[in-house]
């Protein structure tokens, strides 16, 4: 026992292919030679998500982080780091910015991690079902500060100073919403949390509520004090049972402690909560539809103005923000608006949480400062594309957003930059696509989603989404025309102008954005009747090359519709009329006898 140091060698796929095993062996040999083998343990780890700088070696407990290590470095690592207890300076990771400055202190070297976690600060640290653990990590200090040291205007000013913009997607300044509601005279006002997270592939809000429910409760209570409301409503989708359970526990515990209810901490301020469950309609993420749903009406948007800030829930002034926006607020009050403004870009301060999914090695939740580039998210944090394939695009903003192509890998991500290139921040879904993804197929999926989720109240959305979907289907079958492209543009632009709510106004975004950046792909489907990615089933044909087929019968056994026939040891044949283009045979053939065209 009594190991003094641990040497961690990254064993992620990328590092492994760049000689991690050789480094591991070299370190072991050197440790043996220098007589320290019993003082250390060398282990292979999972991916550190910093693959561009791999292979990576980390020494614990000193936390020395060595990058681009080669087997020849082993001798120095052992003699310096282990025997003498010093860092090998030339191998340490140095941030590009520090490098430019030239002069820096080893102690001050920026942490190699690109993520900054404000919203997710407690996720993975505390037990979400124990209020004491939240309290021990500065929980409810912001509420104390607000109730006993600040007046409502002071709170709103701090928010204004922070520059916080709504994280639900549109990016409206949060302080303005609060200020509108504060300015309206009314004996009853409401604070609402939008936890109706509905974008396909997005789960940031779920994780926040499951991991740190008190941060949202604290923030909404603060808002109540700032605008003069005593009632908070959390509208959460019923599909999130664990998040609901933890919220209920959190509310109960806060009430027992007197952090909710009458006369909070003896301040004279009252605030309490109610949870309302959504029934799973995407449109209820739109604020006016959400409020109608709470009232027990059908979840349909109503025209704005009047804005909820003035006439919201039950016709009363209402502040409505989404989960991620709320989770930021206690930290802004604690550390100050200026601190928050120091993170991110000039017009988009703070961080953004993304749910990184799709063809990416390290899928997961990432929280990065605004202004981080797509390249940093996909390659540094995400560990690159699965299977070493080529990056094609990233879809942001779900059914309301667009695509970012390889040309935008170095574009800093914030609200305005994304809008400028025809996508949008959205709530934070980020789906990575590689060369095997067909844009028409992807866009068709989103459009089908919008057809299903359109509430049907206004014609531009109800008819527009259906028409767009029909045209996309036609194109995916190889029956599209150039006129169809023009029509989609006309319909899409009309919807943007005329639809009642955000759902309809943004539904054409995926199409308009891909028509701009992947026009060739549309033309291939229309003119050449070809889907290069092989996703549009009507344009794909699987055939067996009789010269290569040895009659092993694997394909025939794999075929789910039994449309492959042939004698054993004789070339097989696919019945094209029966084939469902699933590709099972293509994947199963070990002899490359099946062609896909």
């Amino acid at each position, binding site marked *: *026992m*009594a*190991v003094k140091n*641990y040497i*961690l060698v990254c*064993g992620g796929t990328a590092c492994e292919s760049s000689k991690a095993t050789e480094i591991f062996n070299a370190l072991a040999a050197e440790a043996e030679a220098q007589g320290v083998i019993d003082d250390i*343990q060398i*282990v*292979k*780890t*999972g*991916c550190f*998500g910093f693959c561009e700088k791999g292979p990576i070696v980390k020494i*614990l*407990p000193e936390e020395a982080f060595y990058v681009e290590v080669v087997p020849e470095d082993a001798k120095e690592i052992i003699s310096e780091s282990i025997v003498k207890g010093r860092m090998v300076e030339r191998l340490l990771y140095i941030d590009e910015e520090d490098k430019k400055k030239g002069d820096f202190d080893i102690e001050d070297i920026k942490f190699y*991690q690109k*993520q*900054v*976690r404000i919203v*997710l*600060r407690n*996720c*993975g*640290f*505390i*037990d*979400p079902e124990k209020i*004491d653990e939240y*309290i*021990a*990590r*500065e929980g*409810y*200090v912001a509420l*104390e500060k607000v109730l*006993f040291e600040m007046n409502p205007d002071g709170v709103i000013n701090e928010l204004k100073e922070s520059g916080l913009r709504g994280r639900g997607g549109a990016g409206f300044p949060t302080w303005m919403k609060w200020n509108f509601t504060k300015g309206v005279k009314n004996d009853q006002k409401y604070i609402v949390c939008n936890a109706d997270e509905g974008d396909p592939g997005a*789960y940031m809000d*779920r*994780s926040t509520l*499951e*991991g*740190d429910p008190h941060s949202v409760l604290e923030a909404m209570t603060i808002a109540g004090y700032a605008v003069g409301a005593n009632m908070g409503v959390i509208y959460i989708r019923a599909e*999130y049972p*664990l*998040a609901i359970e933890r919220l209920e526990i959190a509310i109960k515990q806060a009430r*027992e*402690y*007197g*952090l909710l*209810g009458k006369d909070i*901490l003896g*301040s004279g301020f009252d605030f309490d909560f109610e949870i309302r469950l959504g029934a799973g309609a995407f449109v209820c993420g739109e604020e006016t539809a959400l409020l109608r749903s709470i009232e027990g009406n059908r979840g349909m948007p109503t025209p704005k103005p009047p804005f909820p800030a003035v006439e919201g829930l039950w016709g009363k002034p209402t502040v409505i923000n989404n989960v991620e926006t709320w989770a930021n607020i206690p930290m802004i009050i604690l550390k100050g608006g200026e601190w928050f403004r120091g993170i991110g870009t000039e017009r988009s301060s703070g961080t953004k949480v993304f749910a990184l999914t799709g063809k990416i*090695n*390290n*899928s*997961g*939740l*990432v*929280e990065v400062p605004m202004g981080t580039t797509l390249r940093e998210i996909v390659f540094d*944090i995400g560990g690159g594309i699965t299977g070493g394939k080529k990056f094609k695009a990233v879809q942001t903003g779900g059914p309301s957003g667009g695509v970012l192509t390889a040309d935008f890998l170095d574009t800093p991500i914030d609200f305005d930059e994304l809008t400028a290139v025809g996508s949008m921040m959205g709530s934070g879904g980020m789906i990575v696509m590689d060369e095997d993804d067909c844009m028409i197929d992807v866009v068709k999926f989103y459009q089908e989603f919008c057809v299903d989720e359109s509430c049907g109240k206004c014609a531009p959305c109800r008819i527009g989404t259906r028409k767009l979907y029909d045209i996309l289907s036609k194109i995916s079958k190889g029956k599209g025309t150039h006129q169809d492209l023009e029509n989609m543009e006309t319909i899409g632009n009309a919807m943007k102008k005329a639809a009642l709510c955000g759902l309809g106004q943004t539904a054409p975004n995926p199409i308009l954005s891909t028509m701009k950046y992947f026009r060739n792909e549309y033309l291939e489907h229309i003119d050449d009747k070809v889907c290069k990615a092989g996703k549009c089933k009507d344009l794909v044909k699987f055939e067996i090359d009789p010269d290569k087929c040895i009659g092993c019968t694997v394909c025939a056994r794999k075929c789910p519709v039994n449309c492959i026939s042939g004698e054993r040891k004789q070339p097989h044949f696919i019945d094209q009329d029966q084939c469902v283009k699933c590709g099972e045979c293509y994947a199963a053939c070990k002899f490359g006898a099946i062609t896909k065209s």
Partner: protein
Amino acid sequence: MAKMTLEELRKLRENKKIELDKRDTEGKSIHIIIGMGTCGIAAGAKESLDAFLEEIDKHNIDNVTVKQTGCMGLCYVEPTVEVKVPGMPDTIYGNVDGATAREIITEHVLAGKLVDKHIFDRPAKDIVKE
């Protein structure tokens, strides 16, 4: 606990902080913290939890606390578990199935060795502690 005053809340916070610090530096107790968000549970965190408890019983270890936390964001390697043993670096393990959980007890907790191939890293610095 009954409703608190401001002073009582502050006192509670200080006490809890001291408890946490004690655990970090001089405390003898071992902590195993399992990520139990929907994602972790879907990936099998409950089975890992059972395996930890069984293995702890089997070896009659009495200074281990097993507890839950939310999602750390490392979805690609769920279930994730943080292991804190005094005198060893706090370690995040990923892809912790039942077998790995048992290995963590026998290797990490009992033998003071890190478990190969399962070590990951916290994705960011702790902003609250700064």
